[in-house]
């Protein structure tokens, strides 16, 4: 009895997943203007993540550990507000 219920559930789940897959596939196949739009989306995402992010927008603090980031930002924020002589005294 338990095995049969488990199998029924498994078949139903499989059918649902197939239905969802078919829903998307038939939807994509029926697209007209959507094909151009998907092309634009893919080109845009490629430019954003594989060109801009990779070559032009690295995270400024990414090569630092948490502690180094704290230290770096604190030095930046303190130095930019105070005169250099004062800062040297305070940070040393």
């Amino acid at each position: 009895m338990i095995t049969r219920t488990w199998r029924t559930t498994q078949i139903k789940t499989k059918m649902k997943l197939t239905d969802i897959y078919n829903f998307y596939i038939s939807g994509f196949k029926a697209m007209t203007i959507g094909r151009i739009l998907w092309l634009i989306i893919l080109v845009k995402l490629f430019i954003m993540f594989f060109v801009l992010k990779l070559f032009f927008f690295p995270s400024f603090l990414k090569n630092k550990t948490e502690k180094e980031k704290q230290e770096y930002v604190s030095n930046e924020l303190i130095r930019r507000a105070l005169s250099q002589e004062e800062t040297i005294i305070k940070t040393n």
Partner: protein
Amino acid sequence: MQETIDTSMIDWSRAQFALTAMYHWLFVPLTLGLAVVMGTMETIYYRTGNAFWKRTAKFWMKLFGVNFAIGVATGLILEFQFGTNWSNYSWFVGDIFGAPLAIEGILAFFMEATFIAVMFFGWEKVSRKFHLASTWLTGLGATISAWWILVANSWMQYPVGMVFNPETMRNEMVDFMAVAFSPVAIVKFFHTVLSSWILGAVFVVGVSCWYLIRKREQAFARASIKVASAVGLFASLVTAATGDQSAYQVAQVQPMKLAAMEALYDGSAHAPLTVVGPVRIPEMLSVLATHSRDGFVPGINDLLQGGYPLADGSTALSAEEKIERGKMAVNALADYRQASKAADSVQMEAALATLQQNMPYFGYGYIRDTASLVPHVALMFWSFRIMVGLGVYFIFLFALLLFLTWKKSSFFDQSGWLHQIGLWSVPLAYIASQAGWIVAEVGRQPWTIQDLLPVNAAISHLETGSVQTTFFIFLVLFTVLLIAEIGIMIQAIKKGPEDI
């Protein structure tokens, strides 16, 4: 000798951020606005079963899809800029900014991606009820995304619900509800989202008027104008009401922004509101800013010189006094960190007390010239008037169009000039929308976070040339996307609604 940051680098970084945000904002309000118009049309189809409304809703959905596809993910570029150009800011804001943006990203992806597929692919495959729900949920997903973005933006204008930790150098959230439901965030959300509905409604009116000018699809165009005008009129009235609330909040938390909006140099009680030129409404500014006819509204000079009475009975500090307090806060931060390294708990405690006492003025420690505390007055003054003037114009436009289409007036069908007005109102809606953001964002300069972090402290150490390069890359990229959007839109509009 002070460590200086190249001001041209700050300006280029600001310009780059403004460019990206303004281009991004071309797409977002149309998504939010069209979602409501097409949702309303599909609801009529659901209730009446009339295939005319299905055809009408499907056409506007197609234009929604074009706009959504071109605009999607353009906002992520702003997040790239935070990490590269504004690294001190990114670290300083901590999770306060990250949490709302993460929620926004998850919601945007799962909710919109799921229901938008049902909306476009599911017409003949799911029940009418489920399809209608998917259409509204697509719009709701976009609106909830906007909520979290506006929560993050509002926190920058009115930072609440956090404590600065000098050990980690980050602001740490201590009250999520205060951040997520701050009064500034609530008003900003309704003002921004409802103004987006106006833009969506004007877009529908404009495109429909084009069909009337061309004498094509006239029944479709009249029906679309009727629905759009109803949505637009409701949105215009709510936007006006929330605009009033927003002005009151600005007067309380960002008085310099209000003074710049009004080009008010010397404040007074019974302050009049300048409409334009010499035209003034007596006592109106006092009423708007303080909800009292005799309330004192400080001008730019008052805000710089201080000495005027505040609502809580205290006396306003001058800019110079705030700068002194800011320097005390930064000095205390330096002392705290030095004491922390030396494991001197007594000194740490003393420095922390001074820091906490002066933290509300922390950002003033970076201000070298009090003139830099004043935003661009002319830009603010005129942007505000353009936004409000066009907002009033849209109320009249929607009221007139709704009346004429409701009455099925032959006057409307024969008035080519009215169709031309409807068509040319589309760029005006975009101008009003962009002017609103100029007021909100230029008005808070020089602050990235109000009173806590000015732009010259928030910026990363970069080469000006690299920021210039990426500025022009974005300019080209966004312009290409915009041309693509307009081209595909025009093609779809020329083709018209498809038979079902």
